[in-house]
């Protein structure tokens, strides 16, 4: 019951943030020159002014900005994200089509980054200044400095083309129509490289944070106290230090959830992953305002949800925090 009330409170807090995002993006996007009608006509070769006017009228682009904004807000109030005229399809449908792959990619990258990053951080911290620590620290520093798109390109050349271990791109083998486990394995094979390219930066980051946090916690008073009480080192590490260090990583990961969406634009482009990222980039290029705003809205919601989950994880990890 208290949990439900807390959830409600948090969601209420999210409303102004999401509203702000809608407003900011609406006016930013409208500040950009050019409109969807000219892009569409441009792709079609020549078009008559009547045809362009027809398109503009159909898209509602002939209305004053304030009217367009009012209409948009009104529709949003009904959770109607509008219609993408360029794609001849409702915005919600387009986004839902792409949401699955993006969530799969992002969650995989996120989970891998947090788990593997934490693990490496623990390993590094427990062998402080030894070869293991140095190796992990150096590797994470290098990974932290590597541009994701460049890594993706290099991986395609090595693993897909030269070694032929993994498929080059896409979500699954087209036309194979696998079912059951075959399908799962097929998708997993396609997921390996994009998830690696997307997660490596964060993996490195979390390994560093985890290591630092572990070392910081080890120096805390409560550890000394626990030692004095005669608790085993094992128990101290797993019972206290690890738990508290994880809190730091989880908090950080929550803040970064939004950035994962940004990173996925580049990674999705390189790997032909049919997700929100490429959809957003194409929508921007073609001034598909409704679609772009819809994507911003959905990604803002995603970030809010992720942060909420992080909060809940936080609560379960740290019994001191009351909700």
């Amino acid at each position, binding site marked *: 019951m208290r949990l439900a009330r807390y959830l409600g409170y948090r969601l209420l807090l999210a409303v*102004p*943030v999401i509203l*702000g*995002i809608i407003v*900011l*993006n609406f006016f*930013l*996007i409208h*500040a*950009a020159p050019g409109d969807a009608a000219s892009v569409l006509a441009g792709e079609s070769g020549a078009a008559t002014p009547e045809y362009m006017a027809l398109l503009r009228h159909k898209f509602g682009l002939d209305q004053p900005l304030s009217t367009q904004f009012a209409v948009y807000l009104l529709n949003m109030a009904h959770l109607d994200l509008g219609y993408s005229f360029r794609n001849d399809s409702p915005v919600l449908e387009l986004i839902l089509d792409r949401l699955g792959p993006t969530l799969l990619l992002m969650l995989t990258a996120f989970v891998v980054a947090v788990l593997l990053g934490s693990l490496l951080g623990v390993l590094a911290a427990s062998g402080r200044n030894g070869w293991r620590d140095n190796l992990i*620290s*150096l590797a994470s*520093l*290098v990974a*932290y*400095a*590597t*541009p*994701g*798109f*460049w890594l993706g*390109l*290099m991986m395609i*050349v090595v693993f897909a*083309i030269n070694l032929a271990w993994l498929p080059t791109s896409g979500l699954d083998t087209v036309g194979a129509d696998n079912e059951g486990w075959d399908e799962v394995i097929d998708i997993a094979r396609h997921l390996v490289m994009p998830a690696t390219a997307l997660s490596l930066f964060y993996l490195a980051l979390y390994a*560093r*944070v985890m*290591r*630092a946090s572990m*070392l*910081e916690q080890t120096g805390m008073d409560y550890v000394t106290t626990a030692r004095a009480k005669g608790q085993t080192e094992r128990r101290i590490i797993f019972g206290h230090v690890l738990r508290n260090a994880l809190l730091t990583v989880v908090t950080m990961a929550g*803040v970064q959830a*939004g*950035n*994962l*969406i*940004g*990173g996925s*634009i*580049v990674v999705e*482009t390189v790997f032909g992953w049919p997700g929100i990222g490429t959809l*957003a*980039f194409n929508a*921007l290029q073609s001034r598909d305002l409704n679609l772009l705003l819809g994507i*911003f809205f959905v*990604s*803002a919601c995603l*970030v*809010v949800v992720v*942060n909420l989950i992080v909060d809940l994880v936080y609560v379960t990890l740290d019994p001191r925090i009351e909700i």
Partner: protein
Amino acid sequence: MRAGFARFARNRLALFGAVVLLLVLVLVVSAPLAYPNNPFQLVGKPLQPPGGAFLLGTDTLGRDVAAGIAYGSRTSMLIGLSATLAAIGIGILVGGIAGYYRGRVELVLMRVTEFFQTIPAFVLAILIVAVLSPSVPSEIIAIAAVSWPGIARLVRGEFVALGGREFVLACAGLGASDLRIIFRHLLPNCLPPIIAVGSLLIGTAILIEAGLAFLGLGDPNVMSWGLIISAGRAVLRQAWWIATFPGIAILLTVLGVNLVGDGLGEVLNPRLRNR
């Protein structure tokens, strides 16, 4: 200060980073001396592999990749430093005001900061560059616009922590103006952590710039590493050197910046040690 330098120097990684960074700076300064032609000049046969007449080979149009990398270091550094300075400026302003005046101002400003942290940074950067049309200034603005919230939160935290300290109260009691307290007393005291965190931002800024250029949102009149990679991407497999060398240049530079930043952090900001 001397003790700080000794500690920095003891940190072998930081020293390595400083050496790398120094090399990049040499490149920045010496680019026009080593390559008097502009880096877009078509100097030889296209797609020559490295090691021949041109150290790092030529690209699809016959431009010298090494010259491109030399001039690209200027762009990366210019954008990395300017965007970071701008972000620090905004961060200090927002965080400082929030941390100094507290109350409702703080609430509003911190909400705005959180708001900017919620928006996917790279997406916002793309949007801003698209709206302003791709050029070096728009890239700087876009990167600064997505980088400042971290600094703002840091500065606010420091101000809040320092604000209660006796000497600030004493200053206020002596009738010092707000500006004087902020600039003479508070800011110098939280400069070390700002420098440490800010130096790490340079690396991120360079990476964002490369990403923008990769998507075709860089300034087409200015040679940059991201531009060379996106040009080399089309011929990645016939001419691996075009995209590979600038990629390595980015990697090394960002690595150098981060290592130095880490080292500085350890020296300047005990609380960030070990990160």
